[in-house]
C-alpha cells in the first residue's frame, strides 16, 4: 500500500524559506549580478514632455563621444519598431494604444523612451544622453481624469477624437426598481490616488547573443514566457531561439508582469552588435517609466432597506489608464466586477469608462483594481451604518453572503471576464475572527477613556473577496536525477513569494521525502516550453497544482518501474524517503529507478520525469477581513496606525510563514495607499514625485503591528484546495483606516479620498474643535 497520508506532512507546515539564506546573506543572483564579460551598457533617453510631436533627432554628438558604441532611434529598430502587444486584450477596446520600444512621431508621457544609447559604461552612456538633440513640438497634455473627460478637452493621443480607451457595463437584477422603492438612497463621490509599485530591485535586463544565433535574456520579470513571446515577435525570430530567465527578483508587485520597451531594446542591441548588452533602471526612471495604478473617480449610489441591507448599487466610474493600455482593460474591469464584493447585492448597475491621459500606463499593481472596488463598497457600508445609526460591523453582518450559499452566483456576467461565481468562503466567520482579534467589542470603552485624556482613537473594519487563480494554464516538470535528487521546474517567475519552498513542500509530500531533497528551479523558459507568469494571485493554485499532479505522475512511474524490477504488484509497494520499499524489506532508491526505467519493457518515460499543465475550470475566491485602530494627533492631524488585525482565507495554507509574509507585505502597501503614497502630477503632466523624499513610501516605523489569523475554506477548483495569498493584504486596508479616522474624529470628517493627508485631518479638527 502506498502511504496516502504522507501528503499531510509538509503542506501546511511552517517550513522556513530555502531562499532566505541566499537572499539575506547577499548571495542572491539578480539581473545585475549576472556576469557577462565584455557587456555594453544601455541608457534610455526619455521624453521631458507629457505630450509632444517628435521631430528630428540628432545623435551625432552622442556617437562622437569615445566609448559610445551605438545610438538607436525608432527609425533604426527595423521590425522592432512597432507597438508592443496588449497582454490581455479586451473585446470592448478597439484600437488599443500601446507603447513602442522607442517613440515614433509622438511621445505620450514624461519618460516615454525616445532613444537608446549603448556604450562601454553606464557613465559614458549617460554622458551621451546629454549630447542627443531632439526637436520636440510640445502638444497640450491631459494631466487628470477630470480634464480628460471635460467637454472640448485636449486629446492624450494626437489624432484620436477623444480620450475614451474603452467602456464596460454590467447589470444584474432591476436597479431602477430597487432605487425607486428603497428606504434610503445614499450617494457619494469617492477617489483613489495614483500609486505605483516600488520594488527594492528596479527593472533590469541583460542579453547575451550566442554564436549559434540564439539569444539568452535575463530580465527582472514575473512572466518570462511573455517576454520570450514578445521578443520573438518583435525581433522576428522563433521562440525556440530565445531563452528568457528571470533570476532572483527583488520585488515585482504586478508591475513586472508587463513586457517593457527596454526588454526589446536590450535584446535588439545585443543581436545587432553581437555583444552582451545590459541596462538597469534607476529609481527616477522607475518613477517615470514603470507602470502605475489605482487612480479612479467613482460616483456611487446605494439603495438600502430599513435594516441597512443593500438593495442595489450603482457605480459609474472613471479609470485613468494613462497613455497606454498594455493590459487592455484588466484593472478597470477587475474593479468593476469586484464591486459586488462578499455581499448579497440583488441589483447592480456598473459602468467603467477607461480614459487616456498623458501619464505612465496604468497596469496591475498588487491588487490590480481590487483595492479600488473594496474602498468603494466599504466606504458605502460605513455610510449606511452612519445614516441608519447602526454599528459598522453589524451592517456588514447583515449583508455578507451566508456560507451555506456557496458556491454563489452573483448573476454578474462581464464582457471579457464571464460569469462571476464565488467558489467558497465563510465571510461571516472571517469577519468575526477579525473583530475578535482587534478587540472590537471592548474598543468603545477604550476610546472613551482615551478621549478623556485628549487622545483620539478610532476603529474601522473592512471585508473583501477577490478573484484569483485565473487561467488559462500553468505548468511544472518534476524530474529525479541518478543521485535520487528531485528537481521541480516551474517557470513562473518568483519575486519573493517563496516558490522554491512551497513547491518543494508539495512535491515532498507526494514523493515521501523532506522538502530539502527537492530543488525548485523557477523562471526559466528553457525548462518548459509553455508558461504564463506569476500575477493575479494565481501561482499557488495553478503552478502549485501542476507541481502536485506532475509529482503524482512521477510517483506512479516510480512504483510501476519498481514493480517490474522487484516483480511485485504495485499495490504491495510503498514510497518512502529511502525509496520504494517492498514487503520483504527490499528498497529501491529513486536514483536506482532512474537507471532501471529504460530497461523496463513497455511504454513510459525512460527515467523518472513528468510534466503537467494545470488548466483551472474556474477562478477561485480568497477573502478576508481587516480591522484597524488608528490614533489621530489632535494638534497636527497626523494619523498613526496603532494596530491591524487581518484574517485571511486562502483555502488550504501551503506554508503559514509565506502566507503571513504575503499578508504583512500587502498590509504595508495598504497603509501606504491609505496614508502616504501618491503620484502627483502638475497641470502639464510633469510628475512631481520622483524621489523617495516626495513619494512617501512608509518605513518600518509607519507600519503597525499586524495580528494575523486564518479561516480555511478549500477551493473545489484545484486538487490542492488553495486560493492564493499574493494580493490579499493590500486590498481592505485603506477603507478600514478611512473608517478608523472618521471614528477617531467622532464623525466630523468624511474620508472620500485616499491617501488621507494629515492636513485634511487637521482642517476637519480645526473646523470641528474635536479633542480641544
Amino acid at each position, binding site marked *: 500500500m502506498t502511504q496516502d497520508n504522507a501528503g499531510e506532512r509538509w503542506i501546511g507546515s511552517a517550513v522556513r524559506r530555502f531562499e532566505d539564506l541566499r537572499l539575506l546573506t547577499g548571495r542572491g543572483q539578480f539581473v545585475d549580478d549576472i556576469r557577462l564579460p565584455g557587456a555594453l551598457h544601455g541608457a534610455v533617453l526619455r521624453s521631458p514632455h507629457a505630450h509632444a510631436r517628435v521631430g528630428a533627432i540628432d545623435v551625432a554628438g552622442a556617437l562622437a563621444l569615445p566609448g559610445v558604441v551605438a545610438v538607436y532611434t525608432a527609425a533604426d529598430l527595423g521590425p522592432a519598431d512597432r507597438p508592443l502587444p496588449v497582454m490581455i486584450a479586451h473585446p470592448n477596446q478597439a484600437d488599443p494604444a500601446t507603447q513602442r520600444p522607442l517613440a515614433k512621431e509622438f511621445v505620450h508621457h514624461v519618460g516615454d523612451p525616445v532613444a537608446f544609447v549603448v556604450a562601454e559604461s553606464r557613465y559614458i552612456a549617460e554622458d551621451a544622453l546629454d549630447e542627443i538633440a531632439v526637436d520636440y513640438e510640445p502638444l497640450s497634455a491631459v494631466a487628470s481624469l477630470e480634464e480628460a473627460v471635460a467637454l472640448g478637452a485636449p486629446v492624450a493621443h494626437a489624432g484620436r477624437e477623444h480620450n475614451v480607451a474603452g467602456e464596460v457595463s454590467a447589470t444584474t437584477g432591476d436597479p431602477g426598481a430597487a432605487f425607486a422603492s428603497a428606504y434610503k438612497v445614499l450617494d457619494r463621490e469617492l477617489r483613489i490616488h495614483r500609486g505605483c509599485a516600488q520594488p527594492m530591485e528596479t527593472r533590469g535586463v541583460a542579453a547575451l547573443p550566442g554564436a549559434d544565433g540564439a539569444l539568452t535574456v535575463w530580465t527582472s520579470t514575473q512572466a518570462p514566457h511573455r517576454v520570450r513571446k514578445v521578443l520573438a515577435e518583435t525581433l522576428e525570430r522563433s521562440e525556440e531561439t530565445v531563452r528568457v530567465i528571470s533570476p532572483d527578483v527583488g520585488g515585482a508587485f504586478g508591475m513586472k508582469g508587463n513586457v517593457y520597451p527596454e526588454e526589446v531594446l536590450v535584446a535588439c542591441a545585443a543581436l545587432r552588435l553581437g555583444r552582451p548588452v545590459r541596462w538597469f533602471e534607476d529609481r527616477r526612471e522607475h518613477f517615470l517609466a514603470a507602470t502605475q495604478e489605482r487612480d479612479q473617480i467613482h460616483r456611487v449610489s446605494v439603495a438600502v432597506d430599513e435594516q441597512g441591507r443593500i438593495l442595489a448599487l450603482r457605480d459609474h466610474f472613471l479609470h485613468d489608464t494613462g497613455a497606454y493600455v498594455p493590459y487592455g482593460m484588466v484593472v478597470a474591469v477587475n474593479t468593476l466586477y469586484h464591486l459586488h464584493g462578499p455581499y448579497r447585492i440583488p441589483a447592480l448597475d456598473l459602468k467603467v469608462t477607461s480614459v487616456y491621459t498623458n501619464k505612465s500606463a496604468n497596469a496591475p499593481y498588487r491588487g490590480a483594481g481590487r483595492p479600488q472596488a473594496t474602498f468603494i463598497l466599504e466606504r458605502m457600508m460605513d455610510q449606511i451604518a452612519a445614516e441608519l445609526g447602526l454599528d459598522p460591523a453589524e451592517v456588514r453582518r447583515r449583508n455578507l453572503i451566508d456560507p451555506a450559499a456557496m458556491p454563489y452566483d452573483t448573476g454578474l456576467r462581464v464582457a471579457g471576464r464571464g460569469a462571476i461565481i464565488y467558489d467558497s468562503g465563510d465571510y461571516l466567520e472571517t469577519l468575526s475572527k477579525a473583530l475578535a482579534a482587534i478587540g472590537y467589542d471592548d474598543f468603545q470603552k477604550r476610546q472613551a477613556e482615551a478621549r478623556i485624556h485628549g487622545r483620539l482613537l478610532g476603529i474601522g473594519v473592512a471585508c473583501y473577496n477577490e478573484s484569483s487563480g485565473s487561467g488559462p494554464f500553468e505548468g511544472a516538470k518534476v524530474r529525479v536525477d541518478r543521485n535520487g535528487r528531485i528537481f521541480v521546474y516551474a517557470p513562473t517567475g518568483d519575486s519573493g513569494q517563496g516558490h522554491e519552498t512551497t513547491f518543494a513542500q508539495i512535491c515532498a509530500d507526494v514523493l515521501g521525502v523532506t522538502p530539502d531533497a527537492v530543488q525548485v528551479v523557477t523562471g526559466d523558459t528553457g525548462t518548459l516550453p509553455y508558461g504564463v507568469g506569476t500575477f493575479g494571485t494565481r501561482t499557488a493554485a495553478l503552478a502549485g497544482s501542476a507541481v502536485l499532479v506532475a509529482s503524482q505522475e512521477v510517483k506512479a512511474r516510480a512504483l510501476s518501474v519498481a514493480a517490474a524490477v522487484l516483480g511485485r504488484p504495485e499495490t504491495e509497494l510503498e514510497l518512502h524517503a529511502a525509496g520504494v520499499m517492498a514487503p520483504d524489506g527490499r528498497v529501491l532508491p529513486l536514483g536506482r529507478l532512474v537507471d532501471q526505467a529504460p530497461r523496463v519493457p513497455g511504454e513510459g518515460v525512460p527515467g523518472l520525469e513528468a510534466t503537467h499543465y494545470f488548466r483551472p475550470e474556474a477562478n477561485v475566491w480568497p477573502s478576508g477581513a481587516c480591522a484597524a485602530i488608528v490614533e489621530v494627533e489632535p494638534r497636527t492631524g497626523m494619523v498613526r496606525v496603532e494596530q491591524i488585525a487581518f484574517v485571511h482565507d486562502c483555502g488550504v495554507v501551503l506554508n503559514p510563514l509565506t502566507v503571513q509574509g504575503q499578508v504583512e507585505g500587502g498590509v504595508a502597501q495598504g497603509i501606504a495607499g491609505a496614508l502616504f503614497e501618491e503620484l502627483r502630477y502638475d497641470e502639464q503632466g510633469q510628475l512631481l514625485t520622483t524621489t523617495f523624499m516626495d513619494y512617501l513610501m512608509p*518605513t518600518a516605523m509607519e507600519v503597525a503591528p499586524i495580528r494575523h489569523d486564518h479561516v480555511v475554506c478549500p477551493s473545489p477548483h484545484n486538487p490542492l484546495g488553495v486560493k492564493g495569498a499574493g494580493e490579499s493584504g493590500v486590498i481592505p486596508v485603506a477603507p478600514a483606516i478611512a473608517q478608523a479616522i472618521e471614528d477617531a474624529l467622532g464623525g466630523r470628517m468624511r474620508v472620500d479620498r485616499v491617501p488621507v493627508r494629515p492636513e485634511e485631518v487637521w482642517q476637519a479638527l480645526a473646523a470641528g474643535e474635536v479633542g480641544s
Partner: protein
Amino acid sequence: MKPARFQYCDPETLDEALRLLAEHGDDAKILAGGQSLMPLLNMRLARPAVLVDLSRVPELAGIRQEGDVLIIGAMTRHREAETSPLVRKCCPLLAEALGHVGHLAIRTRGTIGGSLAHADPAAELPAVAAALEAELVIAGPEGRRAVKPEEFFLTYLMTSLAPGEILAEIHFPVMTARSGWAFREVSRRHGDFALVGVAAQVTLDAAGRVERAAVALTGVGPTPVRAAGAEALLIGREPDPAQLSAACTAVTKEVEPESDLHASGEYRRHLAGALTGEALALAIRRARGEVGV
C-alpha cells in the same frame, strides 16, 4: 543615475583644500559627507568639474570646549556629535535636534558643517545655529572670519560662503545655568525632512523670569526663521500658559511659510504655532529643573 565626469581631490590639510579651491574657483565643489551633494551629482543637477573631499582633513573634525564655547569642527559627523557627552552637556539642544536628522545611516556619513553649508531651511541644524546664535567660522585665502547665522544663511541653499572659502568650525555658546531647551518637529514619516521644526532655548533669571528666549523654526521660510516677536513677549516675565499661548499666536503671525507638495502654507503656519507651544513649554520645564534630559 550616474554623475557627470569630475576630478576628485582629497586634500589632507585645510591649506591644501583652500589652495585647491583657489585653483579651481567656481568649478570646484566641496564634498563634506555627501548626503545632499551625492544625489545632486547622480541626478546631474550639480556638475562640478572638481570635487574637493574634506574627509581626510583632520583639523576640520572634532569636538572641544574652550571656556564658554563649544567648538565643533565642520567635518564632525552628525552621529559623533549626537552621541558626544560633551555636546549633550554643553549644547543639549543640538544633541536633541541631531536625533531628528534623517536616519542613522545618514547621520553616520553626514557632517555638521556640510548640513549648515548646504543651508536647506527645512533642515534641523540651521535652526539650531540660529536659536543658539552660533558663530560660523569660515576659513578663506585671507584667513578666518566669523559670521552670525543671520549673516550666513541668505536664502534657499545659499550662504554667504564665497567661492574659495570653507566652513571650518562652528562655535556654539555653552548653555548656562537655569536654561532649558527643546527641539520639536512634525514630519510625514520617520526620518523625513520636517514639515515644520522648532528649536527653542530659554534661560531664566534667579527669580524665575525669562532672561533669554530663543525660538527658531525650520520649514517656514527661505532661511531658518527666528521668532523675534514671540521671544519678546516672554522676556522679563515669569512664563505662564497665557504668555505661551500669546507667543504661539505671535509665531503664527510672524512666519510666512510657502505651500508645497507636502503641506500648505496655512498648515505650516498652524504647525509653527503648535510646535512652538510644545517646545517652549518643555524648555521652560527643563529650565526650572522639572524634567531631566
